[in-house]
Structures are given as structure tokens and as C-alpha cells.
């Protein structure tokens, strides 16, 4: 009798949490610096992707990124002095997620980083993501790559960020849910493949950029950059996913996952009924394709980045059947993609009627990962993701699974908290 009652409470809580997630109306409204817009951000804070992690345990790309950010922000002049500052505890290092933000790959975000601001029109709450996409070239040489990355970082802060700020304000915002729904009709799963989303975003933003951009050189640079940035829409989608996932937080008794993130060492999840606690397990390796034959698992870090927020809201790996092109990374097939999407239905508690999969006769996307279902079935969320080099840069792409351990730990904590209440 008591058990039945708990089950009912969970069902009601999950329904409430999922409804909150799905009724979110994320609109990209602004671009502002992290210092201006992230709640609690300070000049000497550096954020990273994934669950919290001690400096000593950080993976290569994050260590390198933190040092780069300290120098970039003018807090130190050399790598050595930057490292000393970090080791003396003078730099506050924290997960993006603590600041309602998400960061792709290493997720390095510091005071001056331009952030996409996505607002939920229903609640007024906001989610944020940095706009950075690594350079495409120079990947063969780490030093060249990292120099190019810093140059691009600076350009995004001083040129692209302000131009997009003016354009998105002039446009009066961009409905991200609508963009995502359209992209799903065009072969994107909105995590590893964002070709359609980026093209649609480019269509939407180009007239606004022409209207609001004062200098012709700036306009040309921004248009040329965005015209070839195939993954650009992911930044905007991630910020939208973050604000949507946040809406499902803090519902007592809910067993729905509200965050999934990786720091290259650990995979962490948060659960609606368990507030802000992280539950972690070792990050898995990524099964996929390296962009060059010179790279292999020995060059790469395990699963990294906050982009698994996309799977948290039922996109990416959950809707692989929408993006058969990605099967090429994993030697898969259409049948396999459909199987995975159907498998995700076993561990989710609802569907998103706005997100439909053309190849499955427009079936709705499975959404709302339930920790109970994961533990019971042993089926863990499948995540489409990029592969990062140990020293920085994206060198491949493929898919991975969330480790079961996070869900086991979360369920244990859940039992402690809620069973005693019965």
C-alpha cells in the first residue's frame, strides 16, 4: 500500500517535471559577457564542462584551457605563473552547470567569454552557452592549433560576439524550439550533426547582421565565419536545452535526469528530486571515427563536455534515427539507429511532440530519462559526441554511453531520501 503510494508520487512528480521541461519556450535573445550575465561570475573564475573536479585530476584539455583562460583574462603573463595562481587557489574553478551555463568539449568559460543568452519566454529564466567552436585547421600540430584557437577566441570576443549581440537584438530574438524542430526534419539530431540547424540559423541571422552591423569588414568576417560554421547552432541549442532541463529541476520525488555532463574523467548526472547533487561514474571511451589515421584512443580523452545536455532533453543520441549520416562515424546502419532510438524509449518517461523523427513516420522523440528505468533495464543513455585530443582540439566523432554507475548511485541516494519518508 505504502509502496503503491510512492509509485504514484513518483509518477505525478515525473509528469510535473517533464511538463515543465517541455513547456519551456527557449528564445535566443542576447549575447553578453560571462561576467555581465552569469549569476555569481567573478573576474577570477574559470568554468569548465562536466561535474566538479579537482585541478590535479583534470584532463589535458581542461588543464590547458584553464591556464589559457587565466592568461587570456590578464590574470597571469606566463603559463607557469598562471599554474601557480591556480595551485595557490587564487583562481576559482567551477563547473559551467553551477552558473546555469553549459560549455561544449572542455567548456572553458571565463569573465570575458561572450555567452549566448537563451531565455524561457514562459518563466523568464535563462540558460547560457559560450559561442566558441575550435578552429578547423592546424589540427595536425598541437602548438599551431592552440595558437589558432586563442586567436579565434579573441576574435569571437571582440568581433563576432558584439556583432551577434546587435543582430539578435535587432531581430528581437530567435525561437530555438522551432529551429530545432525544423532541423530534425533535415537530418540533424542536434548534437553531432548541426548542418541544418546552422544553415537555418544563418538564414535567419544574415539579414539581421546586414541591418545591424556598422562596419563592412566586420560584417564580411562574421558572414564568412557563420557561412562555414557547421556546428554553430549547437551552442544556441545547448543553452536552450540547459534552460529547458533546469525547468524540470527540484520537483520532490521526481526520478528524471536534469543534467548529464562529462569532464573527460567522470560522467555526472543530476536528478530532479535530488536537487543539485552530482552522481558520477568514470567517463567512457568514445566509439567512433578519428578524422585522421594518425590518431587513435591513445591521443584522445574519454567522454568530455556539457553537450550531453542535448540527450538530457531527448535529442542527440535519443533521436539518432533522424540523422542517418552519423551512422557513418560508427559503422552503423539505419536499422541500428532506429533500434537505439527505440531503446531510449525504454528508459524515458515521455515524448516531445514538437520534436519528430521523419524516418520513423514522424514518431515523437523519447525524452525524460528516468533513473529507475536505467537501473532496472541496464540500458544507459546513448550520447552522440565529439572526440577531444588530450592536448586540445576535436579529432573525431562517434557515440558513447553514460556509465550505469551514476544512475545506481543516484537511485541509492534517492532511496535514502524518499523511502524513509514513507
Amino acid at each position, binding site marked *: 500500500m505504502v509502496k503503491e503510494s510512492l509509485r504514484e508520487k513518483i509518477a505525478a512528480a515525473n509528469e510535473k517535471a517533464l511538463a515543465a521541461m517541455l513547456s519551456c519556450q527557449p528564445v535566443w535573445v542576447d549575447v553578453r559577457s560571462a561576467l555581465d550575465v552569469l549569476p555569481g561570475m567573478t573576474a577570477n573564475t574559470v568554468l569548465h564542462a562536466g561535474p566538479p573536479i579537482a585541478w590535479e585530476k583534470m584532463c589535458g584539455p581542461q588543464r590547458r584551457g584553464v591556464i589559457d583562460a587565466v592568461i587570456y583574462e590578464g590574470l597571469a603573463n606566463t603559463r607557469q605563473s598562471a599554474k601557480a595562481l591556480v595551485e595557490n587557489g587564487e583562481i576559482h574553478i567551477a563547473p559551467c552547470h553551477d552558473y546555469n551555463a553549459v560549455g561544449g568539449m572542455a567548456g572553458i568559460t571565463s569573465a570575458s567569454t561572450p555567452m549566448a543568452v537563451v531565455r524561457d519566454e514562459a518563466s523568464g529564466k535563462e540558460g547560457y552557452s559560450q559561442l566558441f567552436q575550435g578552429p578547423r585547421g592546424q589540427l595536425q600540430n598541437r602548438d599551431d592549433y592552440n595558437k589558432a584557437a586563442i586567436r579565434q577566441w579573441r576574435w569571437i570576443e571582440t568581433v563576432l560576439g558584439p556583432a551577434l549581440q546587435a543582430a539578435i537584438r535587432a531581430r528581437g530574438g530567435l525561437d530555438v524550439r522551432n529551429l530545432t524542430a525544423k532541423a530534425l*526534419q*533535415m*537530418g540533424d539530431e542536434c548534437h553531432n550533426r548541426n*548542418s*541544418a540547424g546552422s*544553415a*537555418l540559423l*544563418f*538564414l*535567419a541571422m*544574415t*539579414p539581421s547582421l*546586414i*541591418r545591424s552591423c556598422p562596419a*563592412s569588414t566586420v*560584417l*564580411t568576417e562574421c*558572414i*564568412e565565419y557563420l*557561412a*562555414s560554421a557547421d556546428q554553430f547552432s549547437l551552442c544556441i541549442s545547448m543553452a536552450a536545452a540547459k534552460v529547458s532541463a533546469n525547468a524540470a529541476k527540484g520537483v520532490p520525488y521526481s526520478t528524471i535526469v536534469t543534467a548529464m555532463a562529462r569532464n573527460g574523467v567522470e560522467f555526472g548526472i543530476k536528478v530532479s528530486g535530488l536537487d543539485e547533487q552530482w552522481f558520477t561514474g568514470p567517463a567512457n571511451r568514445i566509439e567512433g571515427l578519428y578524422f585522421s589515421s594518425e590518431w587513435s584512443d591513445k591521443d584522445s580523452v574519454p567522454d568530455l563536455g556539457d553537450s550531453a545536455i542535448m540527450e538530457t532533453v531527448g535529442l542527440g543520441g535519443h533521436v539518432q534515427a533522424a*540523422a*542517418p*549520416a552519423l*551512422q*557513418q562515424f560508427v559503422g552503423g*546502419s*539505419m536499422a541500428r539507429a532506429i533500434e537505439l532510438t527505440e531503446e531510449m524509449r525504454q528508459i524515458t518517461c515521455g515524448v516531445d511532440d514538437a520534436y519528430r523523427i*521523419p*524516418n*520513423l*513516420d*514522424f514518431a515523437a522523440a523519447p525524452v525524460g530519462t528516468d533513473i529507475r528505468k536505467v537501473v532496472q533495464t541496464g540500458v544507459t543513455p546513448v550520447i552522440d559526441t565529439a572526440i577531444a585530443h588530450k592536448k586540445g582540439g576535436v579529432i573525431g566523432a562517434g557515440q558513447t554511453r553514460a556509465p550505469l554507475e551514476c544512475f545506481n548511485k543516484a537511485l541509492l541516494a534517492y532511496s535514502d531520501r524518499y523511502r524513509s519518508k514513507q
Partner: protein
Amino acid sequence: MSGIKAKIEEANQKTLDILFKGQPVLVDIRPALDVVPGMTENMVLHSAPPIEWERMCGPHRHGIAGAVVWEGLADTKDDAVTMIERGEIMIEPCHHHDTVGAGAGITSATTPMLVVENKTFGNRAYSCLSEGGGLQLIKWGSYDEKIAENLHWQAKVLRPVLQAAVLSAGGVDIKSIISKAVQMGDECHNRSIAASAIFFREIAPHLLHADANRDTVLSCTESLAVSEHFFLHAIMAAAKAMLDPAKKISYSTVVTAMARNGVEFGIQVGGLDDMWFTAPANDVDGLFFRSEWGPEDAAPDLGDSCITETVGLGGFIQAAAPTVQQYVQGSMQQAIANTNEMREICVGTNQDVQIPAMDFAGAPIGIDIRKVAQTRIAPLIDTAITHKEHGLIGAGQVRAPLECFDKALKAYSSRYAAA
């Protein structure tokens, strides 16, 4: 008998090679009078096959009369009709001028034309600029002041800016855009939203280089950014440019053109020169965009746009574009079955057009009149539905009539069996 079989195989293989080797590139945008072979100031082109004025469907009659007014040859549509009936206006099919026209295919001297060159063979083909969205366009036979205003704007403002951009880009590779668009849910006939978006991404940086003020560039950019079918016309011209070198190949049984004039459906065949083989056009099965419209309002199958099916796009790769199934209450399974069915009447597989949902199987390409006649499977065409007077009222799919293929095969036999 085996002698002729070998000759056919050889001719058809040669045809396929020509189709595969074709490299259609958008190289320029010019007024029809400047570029379309044989174009004159008092000529109006329409979608093929040829048809006399008296027998024409509503969209052709209205559209041609509209074009005569737009060109300033007459003050009113009534005056235009009088001129036409007196034989003062030359009326010919687009196809006879290396041109393809969607819908009614109305093309006149001032019409801004996409110039597509097949870089491999050096031949060119043409199609008018898309007028953008909307149910009332001259493309659908409609003509009024608003339509005229847009046509003027396109000819005076958009054409030179877009021309400058295309020249600045050094041409736009249409084949590669088709390949990418098919990975993004387009079948490149009823759906070309991805192709249009990819084209926009390629051309936008060059639009900024055009010698025009920013307001002009902005108006052109805005127009292109919302034009979801813009690139269909470029794809059509590309298909025509790929197919034309495959004409006049002795013994070839491969179809080199399919076109509809709202009354008749016509085909041309590689081994049979420029002859049209025609049969009554079928009614289109599909979705009407408003409840007030039904099959009784529709003109039969119309337009040169099925040049896309002639190169194995559109209805031949429905499985690439499940969204198009929504017009016909179809399903993914049905779309795949349709694509597989088209394989039975084709001579080859096009690896440049791969269907994601079928594990990247290549598209069926090269319709063989023998296979159609034998299997009784008619080519499946995705297409728009036009009102019997004028205007766009729906979209769906239709079959080519088998009679065209039977007639063509008969002509083929009398020509080659004797030889």
C-alpha cells in the same frame, strides 16, 4: 537480335557515363533575351510538350497573356489574347530553347534566367529565377500588379546583385549542393529547402561584394532567406544541362526529357532525337492547401520540373524526404517501396545521390523505355498541383502515363529493328 541488344547496352552505358560525368555549375544570371538561344522580344515560352494556343490549359493561357502584358507588348490581358490569336506572339516550349520552366514555365525576353553550364561537355541550360513563395505567381499562370511588381524587382534589382555574387563566387557547383541536400531531407523536387539553404550559405558572403548599397543587398538577402524553393529552378536547369548531352545517342532507350503542359505528358528518348511522345496528362494525387479546393479545381499534371525525375531525383528518391509523404498520406515504408520500384525501370545507380534512410544506397537513374513498357511501372513524379485557371493549390505525386513509353518503344522498333 542479340546484336541490337548489345548495341542498346552500349548506348545506354554511354548515356549513364554522360549523366555521371556531368558537372552542372551555375555560372551566370542574365535576362532571357541575352542568353536563351532563339529568344526574341515577342516570344513567350511555356512548359513542354508543344501545344496549340486553343488547346492550352488555364495556367498557360493566363500566364502567357500575363507575360505579354509584363513585357509591355500589350496593355491588357485581353489585348494580349488578341495579339496571340493574330499570331503576333511566338509561343514555344521552354525545352526547345535549352530551357526548363517550373509550373506553367512562363519565360519571356526580360525574365531573369539562371545560366547553368555543364562543365564537362560545355553545354548550357536555363531556368527562370524562382519568384519566391506564394500561391499566386506567374509560374502558376497568375498575373496581376503585385506579381508584376515582384517580377520587375527581380529583373531590375535582384538579378544584377545575384549575378555579381555568382560571378564573385566563380560559379556555384549544383551537383555538390544536390548531394548535400539529399542528406538533409530534400528529394529536390517538392522539397528543396535544404538545397536553398546551402546555396544561400555559399552565396551570402558574395552578395556583400555586389556593387550595390546596403539596403539593396539587404532586400535581396531577405528575399533569398525566405525562399524555400529557390534552388529548385537551379536544380532543374542542372538536370537539363546533364541530360542534353545524352540526347541523340543511337540505340539509347534512356529517357532524356519528361514534361507536362497541363493537357499532355511528353517524353523524349536518347535514340529518338527530339521527338516528343505524348499521352494525356494524369491528375495529381495529393494535398490541397485549402479545404475549398478539390480535384475538380485542379489542372492535370503541369510543368517541366519532372526533369528532376529524369535524372533520378524527386519521386525516384522519395525515401530521402519523408516529409513529402505528408502530402499523400504515405509512410516511410511506402517511400522506400517507391524508390525500390523506380529501380526496376532504371538502367543505373547514382552514387552522387545517396539516400540516408536506405543506408546510403545510390539513387535509381536513367529511365529505360523498354523496362517501363515491360514492367508497366510508370515513373513516379512528385509535383505541385495547379488550379485549372491559375495559382498553386496543392502538392502531391503523379505517374507518367504508360502510353508515352509504348508510343516511344513503337517508334524505336520501327527505327532500329529494321536497321
